[in-house]
């Protein structure tokens, strides 16, 4: 949608090839620049932003395939290898004509691909070495040619140096048009051939046995990628354009495990990174756009790495801590249950209390530590404390949890001694761990499997299902280890 609006916007503004430097005002402060940026009044700014977003979308989308097909190095090779073609295209047209540059770049890209597959077929070199070799050679040639052109009278003001690190501000209407065409083509083909491309990416050989035209599909996706790289070059630069293929897709890869979502997310992340990059470049008076886009993308990646809901590092640490805290609460509840049980009062009445001293003796810790645990229980709504703070009572929810955890523990001990022939003195520590993670269904299975037992291997009663579920469903948020 956003893409369509941008296209419309683009068509409304007339081709403004002359107004190429958007940050030229120079003396304006950052805030003023930001206001200018978001007012979208500047035609060349609109062009630059549209171009950046198109590039981000296209690279993000195709990058999804690059990453899942483990072809990140191929993207890198291709992006560097087109440089000589760009310069030769310029020399041929004697001006920065996008079509000439596109043709030159495509030819250089094809040459690089040809050389690498020739090397792969005729030598024992492995793909990474070949790609590194071709990348560096072509890039070196490109840099030399670029140096030569810069010394020519026509070349000095060519703006070709912008191809190295990218300058979104320098985009012309024609450039952006090409980006729109490239992006539109990718969207249409990926949308149409989504399933064929999925087969290609997942297992090329299998797709081939189905009669799908794998070679052709591979060619299509590679050509789209080459096209995307070449039109992106002006905005992102040769050096970093492959990052726009890889970083958004790698970020999306951390966040989802379905291909269609990965592609969508990667495209959105690409646009976000490109937009932020263009904005940063504008704020900083035409800093090179490419590095800023990549920086933004890398920040998104870092955020995903740390906070991804499933695999994020911080998320995992927090989840672990929550789980430990819950296990601690459950252990305290269990200790309370045990004290009452020793008094012969377990399950008799919620009204019976446990003193802090009894609890700390049961848990083998200081009264101070126990006090801490008690406060935790009270906060979680699992227990209440008498006015003087010395006697502890279960809430109905707390009692229910205590019974459930004791039941888990004793059932597991029984299961280990019966089914896995552990001796009774070996099972306690095992059960201490397992009791917190047994799910409701597993507990039911255990109970059925053990023929609804009443006592554990140590002769203590196992709380029954009725005793647990009779009180009414009240479990702490997150449940009894159902995660």
């Amino acid at each position, binding site marked *: 949608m956003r893409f369509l609006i941008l296209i419309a916007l683009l068509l409304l503004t007339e081709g403004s090839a002359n107004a190429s430097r958007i940050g030229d005002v120079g003396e304006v402060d950052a805030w003023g620049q930001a206001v200018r940026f978001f007012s979208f009044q500047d035609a060349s700014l609109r062009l630059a932003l549209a171009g950046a977003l198109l590039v981000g979308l296209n690279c993000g989308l195709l990058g999804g395939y690059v990453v899942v097909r483990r072809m990140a190095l191929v993207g890198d090779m291709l992006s560097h290898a087109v440089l000589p073609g760009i310069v030769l295209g310029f020399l041929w047209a004697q001006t920065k004509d996008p079509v000439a540059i596109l043709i030159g770049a495509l030819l250089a890209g094809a040459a690089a691909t040809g050389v690498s597959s020739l090397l792969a077929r005729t030598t024992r070199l492995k793909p990474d070495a070949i790609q590194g070799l071709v990348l560096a050679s072509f890039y070196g040639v490109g840099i030399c040619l670029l140096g030569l052109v810069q010394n020519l009278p026509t070349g000095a003001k060519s703006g070709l140096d912008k191809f190295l690190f990218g300058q979104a501000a320098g985009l012309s209407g024609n450039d952006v048009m090409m980006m729109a065409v490239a992006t539109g083509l990718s969207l249409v083909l990926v949308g149409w051939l989504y*399933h064929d491309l*999925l*087969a290609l990416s997942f297992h090329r*050989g*299998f797709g081939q*046995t189905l009669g799908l035209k794998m070679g052709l599909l591979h060619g299509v996706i590679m050509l789209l990628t080459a096209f995307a790289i070449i039109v992106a070059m002006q905005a992102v630069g040769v050096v970093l354009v492959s990052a726009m293929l890889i970083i958004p897709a790698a970020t999306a890869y951390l966040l*989802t495990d*379905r291909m269609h979502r990965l592609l969508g997310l990667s495209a959105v992340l690409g646009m976000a990174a490109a937009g932020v990059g263009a904005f940063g470049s504008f704020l900083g008076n035409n800093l090179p756009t490419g590095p800023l886009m990549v920086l933004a993308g890398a920040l998104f990646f870092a955020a995903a790495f740390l906070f991804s809901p499933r695999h994020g590092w911080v998320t995992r640490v927090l989840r672990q801590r929550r789980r430990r805290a819950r296990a601690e609460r459950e252990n305290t509840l269990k200790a309370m249950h045990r004290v009452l049980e020793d008094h012969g009062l377990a399950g008799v009445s919620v009204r019976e209390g446990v003193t802090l001293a009894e609890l700390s003796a049961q848990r083998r810790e200081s009264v101070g530590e126990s006090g801490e645990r008690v406060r935790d229980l009270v906060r979680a709504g699992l227990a209440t404390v008498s006015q003087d703070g010395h006697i502890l009572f279960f809430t109905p929810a707390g009692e229910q949890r205590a019974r459930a955890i004791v039941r888990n523990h004793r059932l597991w001990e029984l299961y280990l001694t019966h089914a896995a022939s552990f001796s009774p003195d070996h099972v306690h520590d095992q059960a201490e761990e397992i009791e917190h993670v047994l799910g409701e269904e597993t507990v039911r299975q255990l109970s059925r499997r053990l023929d609804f037992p009443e006592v554990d291997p140590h002769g203590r009663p196992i709380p029954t299902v009725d005793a647990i579920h009779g009180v009414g469903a009240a479990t702490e948020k997150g449940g009894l280890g159902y995660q």
Partner: protein
Amino acid sequence: MTNNEMPPALELHDVSVSYHKKPVLYGVDMALPAGSLAGLIGPNGAGKSTLIKAAMGLLPVHSGWVKFFGEPLEGVRKRVGYVPQREEVDWDFPVSVMDVVLMGRYGHLGWLRRPGKADRRVAEESLEKVGMLPFRDRQISNLSGGQQQRVFLARALAQDSDLYLMDEPFAGVDAATEKAIITLLKEWREKGKTILVVHHDLTTARDYYDRLVLLNMRVVASGPTADVFTMELLQKTYGGRLTILSDVAAEAQRAEDGVKI
């Protein structure tokens, strides 16, 4: 089940295949009558997987030809299903169990290139058959080896082919799954399907298959299990008598490619 008027489900004639310049198969002749459940056995490096891949057109064939139901593969692709080894795919790939099984239907897609309701129904039924329907929305890396293999079988089932070439479907699979798989394969045979299975375990080969193909670079023997599963033939297959042939053939190949020997 053998019917002399019908062409064999799979026929290889004088097939030679080289892999990284080393000959792996050398003048292989083989015919598999329709309706058989056959095991392809031989020592490591005998070329079992290569034979299947070459037949499916995944490896270039040096010489000879392969026919399916009397025709080249191109004309009968939909009648032939390939079940690759589990290691061949990246199980971290972002797809669900259902996505993978639906791939079995990709040979049937129309110009919109999109699986429809009917395809989904077939995929679901296939998952049901292998007992994997409850896992339909799981990402595939969260599956055990046996479950992964069942997913591949469900995909093959969704293809609805007449001949299946399976590369080690029992590798790394638990006993329960192995039993489930062989039961399923026997069921397919009863429905008239033909199956060729790359198999490693000699102790079960005799019970599982009605025909065996003994392979070691060449087909040592091929026929009904009772005739082929003999001490002598097995020894010939596993005894490494063909090492000379293998060495000489490799040298010949190198000479042909202009590599200095």
